[in-house]
């Protein structure tokens, strides 16, 4: 674990921004002002940030319906995201996509996805582009334990393996797909699945930013050096419902509170960096305040934003008409 102060602060700021963003959306959704489906990433921040810290704009990621964290970690502007979630014209997708479809191709963010298992094949394609054009880039598919059972995901593992693609499969295992536990839905194990396709897999503690960061470094270096695909099986937890409005009665009483109190990735990060005397709590508190302010500003901006115009309904279907 060799990270300088600037990197550590950046990691913390990004995780904190995601947490603020999601906690705030949880409150704002309850007011009824936000349309559609919103799936929050709170609790899982260490995964997105630990992986994306190793990436630049030439590297591509594909995300999921639970995409806000991946977007922020990949550098998508918070204001553009918030405005998108409110259906505003100045949102990153012009208000046409919403929470489930936030994308910023200029940042190498190929989109959140409303179709579970939609991302892994796309990432094989992005990795193929990188390999063919020798861009030096890699491509990362984030997908859930539920998505790990989708044919598209399993086929992608095989394709990436036989074509030796610079792809990284990050299975974010939060234990549930909607209300269904992965202990019920996943046959075998993620690691053995990877092994079956000839892909190395690392088991990763997703509550520990540094564990994710190190595992991702290994996998990404391997991909960049022509070593082919890897899988990270990241165990973590989501703090809110599957989507906003889910009563989560399928979870054990106190399950989330216990995880929040004992394993929270942000709290753990703070502990780790202060134990190692890398950052002091005063500077982390400043980051907390700044992240909260940035999110507050974005909400105000989004609420004040204008919706798309009538003409926007008909544009953007094709490049040329």
């Amino acid at each position, binding site marked *: 674990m060799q990270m300088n102060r600037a990197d550590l602060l950046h990691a913390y700021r990004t995780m904190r921004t995601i947490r603020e963003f999601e906690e705030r959306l949880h409150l704002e959704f309850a007011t009824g002002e936000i349309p559609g489906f919103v799936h929050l990433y709170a609790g899982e921040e260490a995964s997105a940030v630990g992986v994306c810290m190793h990436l630049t704009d030439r590297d591509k990621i594909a995300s999921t319906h639970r995409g806000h964290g991946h977007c922020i970690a990949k550098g998508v502007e918070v204001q553009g995201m918030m405005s998108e979630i409110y259906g505003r014209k100045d949102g990153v997708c012009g208000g046409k996509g919403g929470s489930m479809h936030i994308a910023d191709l200029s940042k190498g963010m190929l989109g959140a996805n409303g179709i579970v298992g939609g991302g892994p094949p796309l990432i094989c394609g992005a990795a193929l582009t990188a390999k063919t054009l020798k861009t030096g880039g890699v491509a990362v598919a984030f997908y859930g334990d539920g998505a790990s059972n989708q044919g598209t995901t399993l086929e992608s593992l095989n394709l990436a393996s036989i074509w030796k693609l610079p792809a990284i499969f990050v299975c974010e295992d939060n234990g549930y797909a909607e209300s269904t536990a992965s202990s*019920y839905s996943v046959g075998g194990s993620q690691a053995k699945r990877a092994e079956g396709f000839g892909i190395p897999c690392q088991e990763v503690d997703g509550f520990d930013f540094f564990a994710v960061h190190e595992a991702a470094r290994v996998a990404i270096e391997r991909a960049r050096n022509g070593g082919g695909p890897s899988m990270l099986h990241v165990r973590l937890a989501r703090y809110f419902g599957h989507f906003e409005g889910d009563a989560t009665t399928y979870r054990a009483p106190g399950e989330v509170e216990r995880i929040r109190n004992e394993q929270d990735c942000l709290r753990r990060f703070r502990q780790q960096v202060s134990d190692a005397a890398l950052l002091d709590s005063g500077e982390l508190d400043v980051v907390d305040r700044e992240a909260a302010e940035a999110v507050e500003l974005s909400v105000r901006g989004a609420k004040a934003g204008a919706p798309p115009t009538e003409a926007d309904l008909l544009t953007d279907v094709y490049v040329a008409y």
Partner: protein
Amino acid sequence: MSKKSYRTAINEALRQEMRRDPAVILMGEDIAGGAGAPGEQDAWGGVLGVTKGLVGEFGRERVLDTPLSESAYIGAAAGAAATGLRPVAELMFVDFVGVCFDQIFNQAAKFRYMFGGNARTPLVIRAMYGAGFRAASQHSQCLYPLFTHIPGLKVVLPSSAYEAKGLLIQSIRDDDPVIFLENKVQYDEEEDVPDEAYTIPFGEANLTREGRDVTIVAFGRMVKIANEAADRLLKQGISCTVLDPRTVSPLDTGTILDCVQETGRLVIVDEASPRCNMATDVSALVAQEAFGALKAPIRMVCPPHVPVPFAPNLEDLYVPNADRVEAAVRAVMGFKARELA
């Protein structure tokens, strides 16, 4: 008879058919919910609660929560149907058909014909369709024209709670693969629904109202919107027939043609994307079979040919509404032959 929601009507149809026939099973993602989880079982009853309570009565052997693997479980439902069960598989949002279409259109739909009439595939696939839920491009499509295009599939679009119960029971008893599409914004709509089981036959359109001037053919949720427009038009002295075909495959072409013969004017209201949809299909039928009866060109009220947008103001512009139906009816009423030149 009592007031029941579209959701309850569907739940009741499933329950009554499961009681009647032990070969009826359900499968789908989170149709019970809580599988393997430490908390409540039957935690969801489907994303919008349609199958709530069924696992309690029938157990997990007959109400199967599946992994997130549509190709596998929709295909398994087809295979089970061909071998003695009567599965009702839930696809959740019809948009997800993208990942499992082969099992539906190359497998289930083809068995009977390819095997020389020797197969029977009593499969029902339930799915939600339609815009208006702010669910954006991948959770709001109609897609029923895709299924209608495939010989071997039957396609059902219940327009209300009463229709939903009778048509679902018919679907389950039917020996062919049936795609049963539920409009997601209608689940809370209530009307009188009989307590006992009843069926509504396929291929028999429902005349929801009869009028002299214009025939409106509308599909699924659009039936309600067409009737709303017809109410307003009646106050302006224009009387409409509003026809609900109920099933788009088979399609009750006879009733459509009879109505057009009587009114001489046709407006079709279809929420599906406008190219190769039910509106174009019915237009072609009428142009071919009842051209001489037409006093005005046919009008189609459809969304524009774009994906469903997320922003609420754009989505509201996208979905056909009563204003647009009213305008179309007035246009066909006001039509003068010389305008054709």
